[in-house]
């Protein structure tokens, strides 16, 4: 069973960000038979995320969410775009993850915005962040503005959703990256070996 976690940073309820996350989830489920999908809504964890930023440890509900994200085979990250980038809540959640939490993990990036002029925020803001985290981001980013939710008749948004979800499913059916976070302590690093070999 492949485990997918969708992170939704939508702040309102109901939220178009959550709608977009649900659309991507539906598409992944449709294109990959054997998959379990869980949605982590950051709005419900907002206090815990702030607490963890101040204390350095995650309260239990946030730790559960982090554990799910780290254990997932693939991620769908969906955030609104404010002021040309992702909101602080989204970044704060990423900040409380361990540095190696998303190494090698296949990720779909998606975003919503009040105008189509925010559409490159996925490539200018989100991709560099996930590149830093060494995640494996699929080629298609999915941006949805109010225009896309309207009835322009072409179902361009639905096609982008299916394409991005298909790229994720395709990656997950392959060998993956073979990389991930490791909890092992490397006993054979130069530094470690120097401890038992004093000058």
């Amino acid at each position, binding site marked *: 069973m492949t485990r997918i976690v969708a992170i939704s940073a939508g702040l309102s309820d109901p939220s178009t960000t959550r709608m977009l996350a649900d659309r991507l989830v539906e598409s992944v489920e449709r294109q990959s038979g054997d998959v379990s999908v869980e949605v982590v809504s950051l709005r419900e964890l907002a206090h815990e995320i*702030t*607490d963890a*930023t*101040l*204390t*350095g*440890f995650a*309260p*239990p509900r946030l730790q559960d969410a982090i554990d799910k994200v780290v254990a997932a085979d693939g991620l769908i990250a969906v955030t609104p775009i404010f002021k040309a980038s992702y909101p602080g809540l989204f970044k704060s959640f990423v900040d409380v993850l361990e540095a190696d939490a998303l190494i090698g993990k296949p990720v779909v990036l998606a975003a919503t915005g009040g105008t189509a002029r925010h559409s490159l925020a996925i490539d200018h803001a989100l991709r560099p962040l996930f590149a830093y985290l060494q995640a494996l981001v699929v080629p298609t980013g999915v941006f949805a503005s109010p225009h896309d939710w309207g009835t322009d008749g072409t179902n361009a948004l639905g096609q982008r959703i299916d394409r991005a979800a298909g790229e994720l499913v395709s990656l997950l059916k392959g060998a993956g990256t073979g990389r991930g976070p490791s909890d092992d*302590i490397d*006993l054979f690093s130069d*530094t*470690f070996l*120097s*401890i*038992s070999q*004093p*000058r």
Partner: protein
Amino acid sequence: MTSMQFGLFTVGDVTPDPVNKTIQTEHERITNTITIAKKAEEIGLDVFATGEHHNPPFVPSSPTTTLAYIAAQTEKLILSTSTTLITTNDPVKLAEDYATLQHLSDGRMDLMLGRGNTAPVYPWFGYDGSKAVELTIEHYQLLRRLWDEDVVGWEGQFRTPLQGFTATPRPLDGVPPFVWHGSIRTPEVAELAAFYGDGYFANNIFWPKEHYIRLINFYRQRYQHYGHGEPEQAIVGLGGQFFIRKSSQDAVNEFRPYFDNAPVYGHGPSLEDFTAQTPLTVGSPQEFVEKTLTFADYFGDYQRQLFLVDHAGLPLKIVLEQLDLLGEVLPTLRAEFDARRPANVPDAPTHAARVAARNAAAEAAVETDEGVSV
């Protein structure tokens, strides 16, 4: 004497009192620290440990000066540190300062090595903070040799070589101070403690217990790997913090403004969440005893328990009241920990016990030699 040691550790911060709207001067903070240490002996605690910091709002930049002053005014208390910066202090000066303290205190001292809490401290002492782990290893390996060997020739990466050097004074009775290594994130520090058979200390105050269990278990395994004993025989110390009143609700009401404005966790989680998630107890003495006893369930039977009491801007009067309350439950804590302690778990280290062990080992060696020669 005592199988497990209890004591205080202080960070030495000058934090505004959010209730009385006052702030101690550096002079008051330093003299109050002495008062607290003497009170620790009065209520029957075994250990007082001071931090080492080199920036405001912290006052303890010269631990051995402070500890020697306390040693002169106490009779039983073991003086220690929480922590001595192994990274930015010259190991030669550490060897000299702490050996001097060992003589002045008649062996009533040990020390805990750590890496400090602020990156900018490294350049203040001429070091590169990106080499923190490497500095820890090299400096400690040199400190070890300066105490274990009378004449040292040494060459390393971070300081000038030593040729035919003798650190003076030599350790009291030829037995160097016991060393603890404090760390909550760095496996190399646990490895260092394990390799030398030293103690390992987890501050156990700011985070949930799960964060400390991994490295303590790793230290215990490596202690065995290096042939010092079984994992449960490794020497472990833990921190802890509490605020107690006879009535649980009084404790919560009185401590809440201090908690809410505390430097580390203030303006974040609620007091209730933080006490549920971390080792902090705010409540009755009985609640404090019960929670402290659980530490041994999580981390294994251990040798030293230190509490952080003088923090968050608490005035001296309240700190001393806290210590009076701690003193009342201390016999219970000792009895309960002793009752659950297996016979093969070693006692907390003292200078006298280490001298006796050294002498016993030497006698055994002589007898073996005689047996061979006969």
